């Protein structure tokens, strides 16, 4: 079956299931790392499994692309019928994705790889989400100021696209999601200065230290932007012990409880959230439908948009209630959130 091009192979698989549907297929949901964001998605995926009767496993590679590749290969070896994956590095993972697509149904979620043979993509555009956060920054600093950006790792697709979105929005530049700027040098355009972008490799002590050190280095710091879920949480910790709560604004991503609490008490300007629960739920739902012989479940455009939302004091309560409801589906809801995604 190696000779068949992956795109065609996917079509064959879909056609095959249309003729001989499979009930209770084994399906897998593969993330791009370990994070609470993904735990929410896991809830969604598992709930979809319960609702649709599919056997669902969720895998979180802890060690980057090589690990993600290994897990997908092992899943194929194990005989799963479909995989929903968040590719860590879509541009360069095509081959791996196509190799997997040659053996099992494949959709992408959270990050897309349009050039691959994947059947569909469920998610949003991180660049646009970044621009939404950029708007929050401008609202926080209407008269301009210094902004520092913090993130776990910069080379991840979602990380650098978010960062660029934030910067382009702050500087009022036209949309160009291929632009990448040097993270080492501060940039000043108009009344805004974006300082160095610091990474922490998911080490929380480092993440907090980064914020503290930027506060030391830049006494006029006006706003910090945390691109991964734990970044705003640790920024709050640093601001608290530095006595700068409220004086330095915080803009974040994702729905860590501390971030939401911060929005409520005014220490956080706002956060841009995705809908991981539905990434999980809809991915599994779609794969299961295809296995059951219903190819119509696949979107014609190949893209299901689950847009990002800005959470501010205005809608924080409604958002949190909705989140609780989703998580209550199974197991215990839990504390602090973060996203390595």
């Amino acid at each position, binding site marked *: 079956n190696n000779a068949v091009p992956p795109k065609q192979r996917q079509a064959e698989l879909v056609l095959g299931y249309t003729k001989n549907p499979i009930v209770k297929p084994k399906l897998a949901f593969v993330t791009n*790392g*370990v*994070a*609470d964001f*993904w*735990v929410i998605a896991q809830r969604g995926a598992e709930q979809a499994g319960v609702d649709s009767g599919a056997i669902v496993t969720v895998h*979180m590679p*802890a060690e980057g692309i090589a690990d993600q590749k290994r897990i997908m290969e092992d899943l194929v070896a194990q005989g799963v019928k479909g995989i929903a994956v968040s590719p860590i590095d879509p541009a360069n993972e095509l081959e791996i994705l196509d190799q997997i697509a040659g053996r099992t149904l494949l959709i992408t979620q959270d990050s897309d790889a349009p050039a691959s043979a994947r059947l569909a993509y469920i998610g949003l555009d991180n660049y646009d989400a970044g621009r939404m956060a950029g708007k929050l920054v401008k609202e926080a600093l209407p008269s301009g100021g210094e902004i520092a950006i913090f993130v776990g790792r*910069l080379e991840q697709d979602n990380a650098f696209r978010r960062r660029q979105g934030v910067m382009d929005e702050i500087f009022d530049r036209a949309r160009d999601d291929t632009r990448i700027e040097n*993270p*080492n040098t*501060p940039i000043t355009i108009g009344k805004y200065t974006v300082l*160095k*972008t*610091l*990474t922490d*490799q*998911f*080490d*929380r*002590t*480092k*993440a*907090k*230290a*980064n914020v*503290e*050190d*930027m*506060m*030391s*280095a830049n*006494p006029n710091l006006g706003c910090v932007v945390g691109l991964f879920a*734990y970044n705003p*949480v*640790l920024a709050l*910790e640093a601001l608290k*012990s*530095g006595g700068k709560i409220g004086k330095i604004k915080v803009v974040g991503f994702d729905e*860590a*409880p*501390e971030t939401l*609490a911060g929005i409520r008490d005014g220490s956080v300007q706002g956060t841009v959230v995705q809908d991981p629960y539905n990434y999980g739920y809809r991915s599994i739902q779609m794969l299961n439908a295809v296995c059951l012989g219903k190819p119509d479940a696949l979107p014609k455009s190949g893209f299901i948009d689950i847009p990002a939302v800005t959470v501010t004091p205005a809608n924080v309560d409604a958002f949190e209630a909705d989140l609780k409801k989703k998580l209550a589906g199974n*197991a*215990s809801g*839990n*504390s*602090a*959130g*973060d996203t*390595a995604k």
Partner: protein
Amino acid sequence: MKKILGITGIFLAIVIATSILSPNFLTAYNIENLLRRTSLFGILSIGVGFVILTAGIDLSIGGVVCLAGILTPYLLTQMGWSAPETVAVILLMSVAIGFLQGGLVAFGRIQPFLVTLCGLLIFRGIARGVTMDQTQGFQGKFAELRWIGNGRISIPGVEEFSLPAPVLSLIIIAILSMIFLNCTVWGRWMKAVGRSPSAARYSGIPVARLQILAYSICSLLSGFGGLLFVCDVGSAQPSDFGNFYELYAIAAAVLGGYRLSGGEGSVVGVIIGAAVMQVLRNAIVLVSWLPYTAEFAVIGLVILIGVLADEFLRRYAANRARTQVKGTS
């Protein structure tokens, strides 16, 4: 004393260079931060120092930090335990871990590297398994307990500056360790075990017991360190909390004069070693023209240059000493 001269020199050089390059380096706020971080990492390094002294190694530190860091908020918030109960259980568990690992090294005769590497994997695995990969945090509560990690002690008469609470822990631990190592028979014997296990055996020294003690102390301090770390940052993610901390801890110890072949090292040196690493990381953010993405390269280079300089000075001094003998004799 002579052995920590080199590292002290490196430390002073970095401090002086950074304070010239950045006006914000010697501010009260920054110094407080540096003291806190140095204390946190210093405690781990003092711990691993005991193991290194016996010519062993402990790679499980990161795993123990993770487990303690995860379990502290987990027991408090999910299980509803009280703070004293939680702390007691965390510390007991840590000692038990060290006891077990030490036992496997001393009686099982398995290479320390292997035992503690398995430990690293197992403890992080347990942390991930227990929490199902979910971040554990204090949810804004338990401020009194968290004081030990992120609190500050105001000094009477000083306005700006207050002492970070972990410094207190560090000082107590350092003093106790120094007393143990320099003034007690067991401390002396622990060094002997590292120098020559067989000479120790022939001297009637309880080698196995001392090895187990060393691993127990190390794990205890790792667990306590994990507790302080999570109290400082407020939450912990099982898959990456404490990652690489064993390397940082061992590196600080080795920088501070410990030899991995055993039997040599000083507590003060270790603390300075830990401080060097923290100041370097701080400097890379504060000195704006240093490229942040090359952070690691800068740290690695500075340490290497420092160590090389130290070695050359030492040889130079040895040569001089020889010539002086010549002169007088």
